[in-house]
């Protein structure tokens, strides 16, 4: 038998890999939120007007270019000399409907960027059409999806958990009221309800995230209420009452802290994933984070169809960031859930 370290054992147990992968991504996101673009060569608000739409400088990323225009850029780079960065600049780069549908007017090669040579700074992930550094934008965007997510969680868990506990513990009329509330919210499509709120109030990402939190209350409260009901069927609540514990202690200590704390963290993670999804979607629909504030969703919205004109990096990197962030939280929550199920089933 080979000796197994605690780390190997951790990975071996259910959900181990998912927790690890999700944990790493979530950690990176949290770090990006805390540090901001302090350590990148450019800030998200810097406009490097001489370097609009510069492709990524990292060598391995160049190989990712597959579109015809991308290949042409590479050709030009070779012609222009080793290590030299050329960038492309389409004639209509400032147009709002840039490169949309069938607009395949060939981008013209521009002159060698001077600023890059002078300062020695490079745009690792390229720049957008306003000359903003993509890496800095991504990091700034991380903050704008992480913080609204916390608002969502505060609403969904802050109200959903107590409601679930009350509904499961007191049952009867309390359960009916919570159930009616839940079913009312559930009969409205989430995104459409958010649109109604946006329509009624000034669009503000924190309002909408609060509404998103409210629409997640049914999910959290029903989950908790079901678990509490199972526990009370086991004689749990009766036994706690028999031990002369107060309602508050039964609810908080027995039913929440010792039995549903894990569910709390799992739901936190899953709701974060959900809120990133909705936040980026709303920003894409122009109802979330508004420019000049940066969100991954509005980067994609702003770049519209640039993907098809060869400026793949403007759409590609935010899309990857969105998918990774959602997957990260999702895997973390799902892995923790698998582990909880395993522990409870033991």
């Amino acid at each position, binding site marked *: 038998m080979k000796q197994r370290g605690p780390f190997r054992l951790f990975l071996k147990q259910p959900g181990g890999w998912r927790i690890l992968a999700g944990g790493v991504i979530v950690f990176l996101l949290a770090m990006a939120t805390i540090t901001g673009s302090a350590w990148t060569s450019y800030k998200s608000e810097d406009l490097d007007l001489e370097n609009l739409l510069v492709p990524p400088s990292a060598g391995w990323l160049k190989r990712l270019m597959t579109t015809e225009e991308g290949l042409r850029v590479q050709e030009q780079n070779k012609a222009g000399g080793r290590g030299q960065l050329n960038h492309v600049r389409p004639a209509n780069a400032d147009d709002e409907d840039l490169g949309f549908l069938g607009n395949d007017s060939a981008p013209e090669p521009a002159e060698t960027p001077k600023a890059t040579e002078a300062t020695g700074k490079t745009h690792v992930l390229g720049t957008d059409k306003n000359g903003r550094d993509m890496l800095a934008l991504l990091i700034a965007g991380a903050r704008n999806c992480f913080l609204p997510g916390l608002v969502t969680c505060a609403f969904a868990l802050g109200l959903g958990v107590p409601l679930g506990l009350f509904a499961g513990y007191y049952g009867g009329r309390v359960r009916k009221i919570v159930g009616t509330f839940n079913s009312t919210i559930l009969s409205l499509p989430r995104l459409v309800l958010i649109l109604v709120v946006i329509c009624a109030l000034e669009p503000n990402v924190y309002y909408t995230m609060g509404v998103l939190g409210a629409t997640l209350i049914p999910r959290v409260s029903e989950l908790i209420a079901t678990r509490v009901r199972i526990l009370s069927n*086991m004689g749990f609540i*009766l036994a706690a009452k028999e031990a*002369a514990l107060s309602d508050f202690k039964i609810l908080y200590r027995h039913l929440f802290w010792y039995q549903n704390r894990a569910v709390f963290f799992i739901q936190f993670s899953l709701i974060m994933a959900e809120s990133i999804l909705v936040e980026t979607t709303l920003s894409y629909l122009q109802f979330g984070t508004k420019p000049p504030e940066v969100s991954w969703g509005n980067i994609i919205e702003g770049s519209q169809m640039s993907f098809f004109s060869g400026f793949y990096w403007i759409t590609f990197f935010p899309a990857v960031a969105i998918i990774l962030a959602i997957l990260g939280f999702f895997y973390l929550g799902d892995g923790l859930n698998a582990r909880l199920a395993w522990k409870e089933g033991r």
Partner: protein
Amino acid sequence: MLGAPLLSIKDLSIWFGGGGRYLKAVNRASLEVGRGEIVGLIGQSGSGKTTLAMGLLGLVKGYPGLWEGQALLDGKSLLPDMGPLIIKKGQDRPGGDFQVEKRYIPYQRAHKRTLKGVLGRDIATIFQEPKASLDPFYTVGEHMIEALERNLDRHEGGAKTPGGLKGLGVGLLKDVGLVDAENLWGLHPHEISGGMAQRVMISMALCAKPKLLIADEPSTSLDVTTQAKLLQLFLRLRDKHGLSIIIISHDIGVIQEVSTRIYVMHRGSVVETGTSEHVLSAPKHPYTASLLDSFSRFGEKLPAPPTDPDAGQGCAYREMCAAYRGVLNAEQRQQCEKLKPIGQAESLAASGVSAGMGDWSKCHYRETSKAHGPGTPSHSHLEVLMAKEGSETTLVKVRNLRKRFTQGKRSFLALNDISLDIPQGSTYGLVGESGSGKSTLGLSLMALQGVDAGTIDYKSEDILKAGKARMLVLRREIRMLFQHPEGVLNSGMTIQDILAEGLEREGDIAADERRRRVSEALEQVRLDPVHGARYPSNLSSGEKQRATIARALITKPAFLVCDEPVASLDLAIQSQVMSLLKEFQRHLGLTYLFISHNLSLVKILADRIGVMYMGYLVEEAKVRHFTVAGARHPYTRLLLASTPSLDPGIREVLAHYPDVEPVRLEGGCPFRNRCPVYLANKSPLCETTMPPLVDIEVGARVACHFPLPGG
């Protein structure tokens, strides 16, 4: 036995698992079932008895991975030969999931093919949970038709018309004692009782006219009276159809009742076999002997205190000891504080005598705190003191307790004018089948369940009228033991945290004082204080139940309501827990209300027993009246005769009772539809008036118009 056996299993081993890791569940078991023979397979949970039968039929979750050995049904092999298997030592442990390796899959496919013509044809199976075994979406009739259609070739002249099938099905249902088969035909499984569902399962099995019926714990979830009738049905089926039956059970009473041969399994191996008489009268294997012993006498030795007996100073019980706190003088108390008492149990056990509970006592002043004689073992010292003062004080006095439950349109009285007294230091046993209202009564005494009318006086104080603050104090004195320790012990908390919770209401207690009392409580129930830091999932079921006892004892209660405290435990562990309870009563002067469906269990502990039926208290008497001959109420006699016991003569009484389902009858005596006295004389009195609970002799009350003569 005539000719070759029907089923013969030789040296069969079964492994589970996959991915190179296996768990050996059955170890070289051999078993033979003759034609028309009922064979009992007995063992504790985890002994491999179910695995042996279900593995053979491929019905276990995580299909058997590997097997070795031979299983012949009527000379036909059930298991394809896998050849000699080499399982390395390190592999002999459970695998993580049940992904079977590729090379074994052909054998398993072959096994499944073989089974196709056998399952439900030659071998029929019934299970422990009869109601869950029926598809909730199908009616009884649809179930029967499904089974009949598959086996139509085995019924002569069974036309394949709906009417013909129904006729056949109704006949089969009546065959298993379901008289009202026509009505039953259209009912769904949730509308019938467990006993009826089990009979439906049996008659579905009979549709195939099988050679062998495997019954896996067939009566475990049923009431005793239903169980008794079911076992008689097995006997009848064997005689009528020449059916061979394997009964798998943990309950030796069930096994000995019907089987002609017994196989005892322990840890995957068959450790003993023989005819019932031989095995039961002269067990050769010590495990069988211990099983029999704990069944017949509950006399198994308590587990030794897990701590080093020399650790610490003085008697561990002195804080809780009635004698120590009461009558002993200063000098005697010093002795208790300094010296560890020496018990007799070890010496008795060493001499081969099973230590009777009356002798198990580790106390310096055994004579002072012990009861007067072996006849009254449960009298506590406190009671002795009380007796000196001249009267037996009543600790709990219940008067005219009434509780009505309403479910939609239907409503019924769960408690109907219950009045009873529980003297201090004694045990009141409460017996009844499911739905009799015994648990409701227990919860009402705990003030955990509101009642409609009546009073509950605890130390002449009505606890139903007690204020909130007073209730908190009372909750320390009145504690409860529950049936399922899993529900009581919060799986997220350590044992010591759970125990310490009981001390919260006593105000501020210093941390080390709290720790001391927790470990003291654990020691009392023979748990190592080291267990305090563990989580409930790391304890065995017996240890868990002992932890719940410690949880109750930590507040130093005077009255304990025990609601089926051992029903979910194995027999051997049951006797440990019962012994503990008995010991605490003697040492701490506790008063118990002991609720159980098992009369023989209650008789061990109780001084007085009350029998409940459908919300009524129908009989109450001293424990010695509770014999088949001594019972005054017909229901009590039925209960006693139904309880599995080693005395076969008792069963004859059962024949007088009709085979009907218990129903809630409105007006008159609730028991009359099952009562042989009523069925004999059809007295109109029984139909109109509920008999009152009246004193029939000193200390015996019975609610019957025509009480039995008694013994």
